[in-house]
């Protein structure tokens, strides 16, 4: 027996003990503290988003909250299952089986590292390439002193190529070094419960080699970030706002909030009231009955703009731009998309900009 086999044999003894007596090496049962903390954090952020009228951000945070709540429910369900099953009556692999598993790991993975002092068993995968995007190799580290924890292992990128929008997301299904197991969850938990070390590492590797766009932290198509439709800058998810009119995604600098309804719009769907210069969306502007110009309701009195009222005549400076209001009406009626609107003679303004009138 060589040195590597002797180490594997020793590790098999320790691992068998850890799997057999997991309560002696960890807590009796671990509640999903991390997932609960995530829920609290997300609820706090959603409250802030609502206060600021960041509808797009709110929607994204709510999606994240659904995941965190699902994780809590799932982990609590597993705890209940373990209690109902008798908690610890599961057959655990023998020392001999674990020893064979440890030796077999060398045939499955490039690098296998056993560290008895640190109570860790680690393997390194080949480079993971998903739809042409190279995520680099991953190190899967199982801490056998932590088997009662719902996440006794970590998945650490060795040559990270994180998503542009999230530096903590090193794989569509890995965030903060934790794998979102998805369809592999039951099998991975089963392998860990029974001490099937080889199966555990292979299952984690197969999840890493797969991609589910539906359930990704960051979709591969967005891996390099999202382009702001207005300024073209690549921005991350948290800095992305969806126009409430056309659905276009812009960065928070380019999105403008309507003074009246507080919803956010891209530059093509926000304008300023020619009188007060405040930004308004089309639906919150109304036509002056005299000149036809579009004004906010605050600036209209008796359905006339300030200039028409002041001059007491039917022609005012704003009437020089009849096409603008016509265009606005046409856009609203047709529900035209952003690309079509971008060519229209409709001069958008952003917060802080003043209208320049002829």
């Amino acid at each position, binding site marked *: 027996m060589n040195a590597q086999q002797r180490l594997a044999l020793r590790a098999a003894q320790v691992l068998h003990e850890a799997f057999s007596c997991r309560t002696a090496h960890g807590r009796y049962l671990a509640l999903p503290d991390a997932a609960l903390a995530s829920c609290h954090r997300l609820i706090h952020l959603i409250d802030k988003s609502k206060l600021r009228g960041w509808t797009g951000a709110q929607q994204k945070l709510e999606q994240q909250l659904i*995941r965190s709540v*699902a*994780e809590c*429910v*799932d982990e609590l*369900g597993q705890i209940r299952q373990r209690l109902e099953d008798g908690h610890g009556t599961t057959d655990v692999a023998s020392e001999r*089986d674990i020893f*064979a*598993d440890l030796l*077999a790991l060398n*045939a499955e993975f490039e690098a296998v590292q056993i560290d008895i002092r640190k109570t860790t068993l680690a393997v390194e995968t080949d480079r993971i390439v998903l739809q042409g995007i190279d995520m680099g190799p991953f190190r899967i580290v199982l801490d056998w002193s932590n088997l009662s924890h719902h996440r006794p292992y970590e998945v650490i990128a060795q040559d990270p190529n994180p998503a542009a929008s999230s530096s903590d997301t090193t794989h*569509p*299904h890995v965030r903060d070094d934790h*794998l*979102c*197991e*998805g*369809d*592999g*969850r*039951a*099998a991975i*938990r*089963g*392998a860990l419960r*029974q001490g*099937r070390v*080889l*199966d555990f590492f*292979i*299952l984690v590797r*197969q*999840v*890493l*080699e*797969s*991609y*589910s766009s*539906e*359930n*990704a932290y960051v979709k591969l198509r967005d891996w390099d970030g999202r382009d702001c439709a207005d300024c073209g800058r690549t921005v991350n998810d948290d800095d992305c706002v969806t126009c409430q009119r056309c659905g276009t995604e812009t960065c928070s600098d380019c999105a403008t909030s309507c003074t009246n309804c507080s919803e956010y719009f891209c530059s093509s769907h926000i304008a300023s009231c020619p009188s007060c210069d405040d930004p308004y969306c089309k639906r919150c502007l109304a036509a002056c009955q005299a000149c036809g110009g579009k004004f906010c309701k605050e600036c209209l009195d008796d359905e006339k703009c300030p200039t028409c009222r002041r001059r007491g005549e039917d022609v005012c400076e704003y009437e020089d731009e009849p096409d603008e209001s016509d265009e606005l009406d046409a856009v609203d009626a047709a529900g035209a998309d952003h690309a079509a609107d971008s060519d229209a003679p409709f001069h958008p303004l952003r917060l802080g900009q003043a209208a320049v009138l002829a």
Partner: protein
Amino acid sequence: MRILVINNDGGGFADHVEIAEGTTVQEMFQQHVKNGRPADYLIRVNRQPVPADQVLREGDRISFTPTKIEGGWTIAAS
């Protein structure tokens, strides 16, 4: 004779089962992975890749692991 069958598909399954003498790997696969294709699974006997027509022996450990397992969050059934 008795062998250990590990099916890592879905909810996972690992148990000792009785099989007839002369049962091949392919036959076991068809019994335990009803709707799967062998090409979509890592099939191991005693932790080693094997040909489909290999005959299983007393005490063997056979495992089926999908090559593709979709990660991501899932809502647990109540």
